[in-house]
């Protein structure tokens, strides 16, 4: 075990290379650029021996990964924001084809106007593609999640692609220490890929041909079933990781000071890490509040949220907005609770366009909700216009 002090992107590059993917195909985009540069550097130094394909667009990056994965290779890519959106059609394709592709997406604002800071509307808009989505809140978590994700997606009961999301600059370009296990330890945790299916000259099959209505629905159901199964497997893999490396990042939700809590704050990614400071302060003031940091948006942990909401009111901070409706976490949490648990849920939209969400603002939001001063959902920071 060594300690590496580096940015989220370089630590992600290290994790990607240590997972030994046979193919990496990527196109650079701010703020993901240093991640793929990092991998290119490992190619130059001879530490990464797989194929590194420089493509001409993100659409091609995803199609190259689809081709490589269909041929039975372990495959990795990374993108951000508009790059992710350019992949959109192929994201559906990768998921329906049941390919275990691992991708990092660095959450960045969608333009116009041009803005490279952190918000989650890029990955949120790809929510329904069938990809699993995990949101990280530290560089260590990025490293651990990438390695664990390969084992998750390559499991015979899952075989779906996964998107590992983390905040632009707040994590991607900020140095933090991370414990890096040895290559032997990683190899022991993550054996070589045994593909669930592949294009093979010795055993010819066709893939992606016309499919009738009687079969198509079954494919969709099988994908849904796989994600349901991931709800059990993600914690299992995390436990095995903890046994080996003595680190745990929580499961579908990371719970922080939730015991006896009357209020539960739900937030995601870097705001989730910042929320811990706010929780400590609010607890010091005598407010019984805990934090549930959502790690997996897909599969969505409805059961775990119902359990939490039984004895607590819920406060949600979304760094995303489904225009014309609500923040997506807020929306989905209410949907999960409906007809199961009757509790108050208050939502906040905060941090869009990369606006900073410091712990003192999180405290203000929590107090506002607790004092009953917040309407159903509040756009934090400009209540005066509502």
């Amino acid at each position, binding site marked *: 075990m060594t300690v590496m002090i580096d940015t989220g992107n370089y630590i992600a590059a290290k994790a990607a290379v240590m997972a030994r993917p046979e193919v990496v195909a990527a196109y650079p985009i701010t703020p993901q650029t240093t991640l793929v540069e990092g991998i290119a550097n490992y190619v130059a130094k001879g530490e990464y021996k797989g194929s590194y394909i420089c493509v001409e667009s993100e659409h091609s990056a995803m199609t190259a990964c689809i081709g490589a994965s269909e041929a039975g290779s372990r495959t990795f890519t990374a993108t951000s924001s508009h790059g992710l959106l350019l992949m959109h059609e192929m994201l559906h394709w990768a998921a*329906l*084809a*049941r390919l275990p592709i691992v991708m990092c997406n660095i959450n960045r604002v969608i333009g116009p106007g041009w803005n490279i800071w952190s918000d989650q509307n890029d990955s949120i808009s790809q929510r329904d593609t069938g990809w699993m989505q995990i949101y990280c809140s530290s560089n260590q978590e990025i490293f651990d999640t990438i390695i664990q994700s390969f084992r998750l997606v390559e499991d*015979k009961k899952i*075989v779906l692609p996964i998107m590992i999301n983390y905040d632009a600059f707040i994590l991607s370009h900020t140095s933090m220490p991370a414990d890096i296990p040895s290559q032997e330890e990683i190899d022991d945790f993550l054996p070589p890929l045994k593909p*669930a*299916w592949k294009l093979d000259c010795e*055993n*010819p*099959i*066709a*893939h*992606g*041909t*016309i*499919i009738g209505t009687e*079969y198509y629905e*079954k*494919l969709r159901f*099988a994908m849904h079933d796989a994600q349901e199964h991931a709800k059990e497997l993600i914690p299992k893999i995390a436990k095995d990781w903890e046994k080996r490396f003595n680190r745990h990042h929580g499961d579908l939700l990371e719970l922080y000071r939730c015991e006896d809590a009357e209020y539960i704050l739900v937030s995601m990614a870097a705001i989730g890490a910042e929320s811990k400071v706010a929780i400590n302060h609010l607890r010091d003031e005598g407010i019984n509040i805990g934090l549930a940091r959502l790690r997996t948006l897909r599969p969505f942990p409805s059961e775990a949220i119902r359990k939490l909401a039984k004895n607590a009111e819920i406060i949600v901070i979304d760094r995303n907005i489904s225009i014309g409706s609500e923040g997506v976490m807020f929306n989905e949490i209410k949907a999960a609770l409906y007809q199961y648990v009757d509790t108050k849920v208050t939502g906040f939209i905060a941090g869009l366009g990369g606006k900073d969400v410091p712990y003192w603002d999180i405290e203000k939001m929590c107090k506002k909700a607790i004092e009953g001063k917040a309407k159903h959902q509040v756009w934090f920071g400009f209540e005066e216009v509502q």
Partner: protein
Amino acid sequence: MKKYNIKSSISYPKEGAMGSTGSWRVFRPNLNLEKCVKCLRCWIFCPEGSIKRNKDDTVEINYDYCKGCGVCSNVCKVKAITMEREAKKK
């Protein structure tokens, strides 16, 4: 043949995996064996593998799967394959 235990749109090769596509046909290729010189161009170019090559290099058209695209007729150098409308106007 190895079968995979996953629900994806995998199709295993067999004759007529796509069903009886011959029902799509509007024009029917008619082969005149007297003109045929066994060059096998039709057999090579048929996009659906609907032309069968016999041991003596004569060919047969499988009308269960021939969609009537006319490629064989087009590539035939001796005009041994002619296209004819399946249903005649009354």
